[in-house]
């Protein structure tokens, strides 16, 4: 009867928009953490698609004070471009205590400057849901996530007893102190994200593209994020590179590999 072609990217986009709208309806007070990385820029793009050009909730940047200068430059530019209501949060208390990569291990610093900062922001703004850009293919612990994933008051993720999720019905209530992580990109892969950035022409930081034989595959704090050897300077070249590689995306992120199950421990304590 009707022949209207829909691609895999269309299907992913449709599902993400559906989730954004469900979250916007279900929760009074929501926000989207934004790292300025490629995934979180896709997230903002999808929010604008969902709400016809606007982002009707605040965008949160957890500033670890170890940001690449180029990323901060991008933050200023993109805030205006997308007309965002930007909130910047720094864990000033931990910095005052001297927590930093110069003196501490990456797991401790990541926990203090990211997770604790997020907890502080949550306590301050009382959000009942956070829309995050995590994907199943990033890490085995993320593979087990739900689209709507509750976190308790201590910020812990009870991955052994997750709510059932079927027929597009989600957990949309929170007890006092709890919040829900809403994860519209769960089904996307790294290559899907790149293809979508290409199709939609979504602005991203230029650090993802190769300069002098190196590029960043994943972006985090400057002291612990390392570029990979690469000559990929266009999205097509990046996709071709990704299809050939068997190295994991977050291999250049030191905090994941500091000890066995580091990611598991970080996530159980509230890391995104």
């Amino acid at each position, binding site marked *: 009867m009707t022949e209207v072609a829909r691609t895999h990217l269309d299907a992913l986009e449709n599902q993400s928009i559906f989730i954004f709208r469900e979250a916007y309806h279900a929760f009074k007070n929501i926000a989207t953490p934004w790292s300025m990385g490629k995934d979180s820029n896709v997230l903002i793009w999808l929010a604008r698609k969902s709400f016809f050009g606007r982002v009707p909730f605040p965008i949160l940047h957890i500033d670890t004070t170890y940001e690449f200068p180029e990323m901060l430059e991008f933050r200023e530019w993109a805030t205006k471009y997308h007309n965002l209501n930007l909130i910047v949060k720094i864990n000033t208390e931990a910095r005052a205590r001297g927590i930093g990569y110069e003196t501490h291990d990456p797991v401790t610093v990541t926990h203090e400057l990211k997770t604790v900062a997020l907890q502080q922001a949550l306590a301050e703004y009382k959000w009942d849901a956070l829309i995050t850009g995590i994907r199943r293919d990033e890490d085995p612990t993320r593979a*087990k996530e739900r689209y709507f994933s509750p976190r308790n008051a201590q910020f812990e993720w009870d991955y052994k007893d997750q709510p059932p999720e079927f027929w597009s019905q989600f957990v949309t209530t929170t007890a006092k102190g709890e919040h829900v992580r809403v994860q519209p990109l769960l089904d996307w892969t790294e290559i899907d994200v790149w293809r979508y950035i290409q199709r939609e022409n979504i*602005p991203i930081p230029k650090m993802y593209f190769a300069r002098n034989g190196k590029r960043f595959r994943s972006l985090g704090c400057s002291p612990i994020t390392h570029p990979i050897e690469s000559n990929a300077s266009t999205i097509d070249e990046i*996709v071709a590179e990704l299809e050939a590689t068997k190295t994991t995306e977050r291999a250049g992120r030191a905090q994941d590999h500091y000890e066995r199950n580091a990611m598991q421990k970080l996530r159980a304590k509230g890391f995104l």
Partner: protein
Amino acid sequence: MTRPKGNLKGRSTSESESYPVSAIRSPISTPLRVVFVGHVDHGKSTLIGRILHDTGSLPEGKIEEIKKACAAEGMEFEFAFLLDALLEEQKQNVTIDTTEIPFRTARRRYAIIDAPGHKEFLKNMITGASRADAAILVIGADEGVREQSRRHGYLLSMLGIRNLIVVVNKMDLVGYSEKRFREIEQDYRKFLQQLGLNAHTFIPASASEGENVARSSMKMKWYCAANVLEALDLLEPQKSDVDLPLRFCVQDVYRFDGRRIIAGRIETGTLRVGDELIFSPANKSSVVATIERWPQVILSGVEGSRGASSTVTQRDSSTSPGMTVVAGDSIGITLAEQIFVERGYVASHQNETPVETNRFHADLFWIVREPLRIGHFYDLRLATQEVKCQIVSIEQVMDSSTLEKTSDAREQLQRNEIGRLAIQTRGPLVIDNYDRVPNLGRFVIVDDGKICGGGTIFGGVYTDRTVAKSKNIFWTEEKITARERALRTGHRGAVIWLTGLSGAGKSTIAQSLERDLFHRGMHTYVLDGDNIRHGLTSNLGFSPDDRMENIRRVSEVAKLMADAGTVVITAFISPYRMDRRRAREIALEGNAEFIEVFVDAPLEVCEARDPKNLYKKARAGEIREFTGIDAPYEAPDDPEIVVHTDQQTVDESVATILEQLLSRLRTEE
């Protein structure tokens, strides 16, 4: 708006260049999602690990990493560990949750959904399986068909998964015996037939040894059909929902920039600019003015080819005539007329409307420890609708592993049981039968914010809404809501519809019931032949057409009175099912409760009573078309309440009605 060049690099190769080779190597098609189910320890995770290994889908260093971890824990390496990446899982040696892992064959991409086998983790299995296009059910050759082999098969059938491959695993443990394989195949095929499912393929395999997974086994030469990967490649994705009737489920109405955009997802069917839509439950109609998109996409060439060449322009509200959106699309539309629409409304096309009801039958699976209880209020969610509901009765309970039926009516449904239920909602619900439009024929039951069970609907009765309905009259939005009225009166408005033969006792019961409710401080009124036939319907006789019109008028009056907050009791023979069904729909449009009461007494008893000597006159031929004598009475199939006036006194009958009625008249908070 232009972008500062130095700061971003989203742009790719220019459009004139040919498409790169990588795009051909990486066709962007949706992967076929395959769920792996089966009894605990029958080897699902091992099979998945083996598939990932044999298709070269593991990240570099993964096997070495796991081998190292195993050595550190003093354990032998197993393929299953590839999945059990979480520390706690390795400790317990049990898969705990649903994962999704991609792999690829020459034919297409796949996403594996691993579902756990432990009994208490059923909700994870359902979470995983509900997203699947196909299922692989693993049975251990050593243990054979077990409880969860059957339970999972049953749930797959309820979740609507038709593509099923059964892998008889661990053949190495039974000496690759064909006899053992055939026993298990026969055993499980018999079970599937009872469910009306046909498993296409049974494959003898050994995941740990790699036999019949990616390569055909030399050790089982007696089996020459497809191995697991070949069988997967032979599957076709489940039929798309594009060709079903349109169901556009409203998620929200946004008022941005002074425009009203109705946002939601097309669950099934197709929608075009210019279509006339009927919005249920209010039955208001309007025409689709625009399909809204951001950023505005200029379509070049073939419709739907929003590929790499889409052009971003400034947002404008111009319409894109001829635009079509289809099942699966998340969309926003504007309407030509500003009718009232809110979340939960379902838009359809005129000739293919869904059913609107507050009572239906369903098969329901229950997945939480706390049992389902009759009479308890639950939230029911169906697509974007959410209403309060009560379980009226549990007619049949089935053990999902033995398929044993316990037909006795029950008060509760326990975890892992599947029950056949009658469900009643407060306020109208827009539904379809599961076999007609699956997305509108399934729902979840929510208690205290938690999803406790899922059900599929059957037995919805479709009526033609075009018959007694003028398209141009729309319900006026009341400024005072039913809820406000209910708060003042302390109860909800309702229509209590008594039906039964002449002489069955309808008027007597109506008056006695009204007296009781009146003493409770409720606003009540009885509509019966005495106050209707002489005025409102004095121009009507007793022909089928006149009876229908008589009931229609009574229904409309009852709805208005119920909407005004009154508990209206009607006492009419109302012999036709279709008329009573319409009375229910009319009441529900007014957001009133509708409760059908069958006042039942055998014809002989009614004729013997004959309070107005009507039966005598009918027998004598003085009255024509008298119900029960020379006109039919269609007894209700499924009334909310039945009273037997040949066995019960008037007081007993009234008590029976009150028992079910009072809780439903209560205001919610």
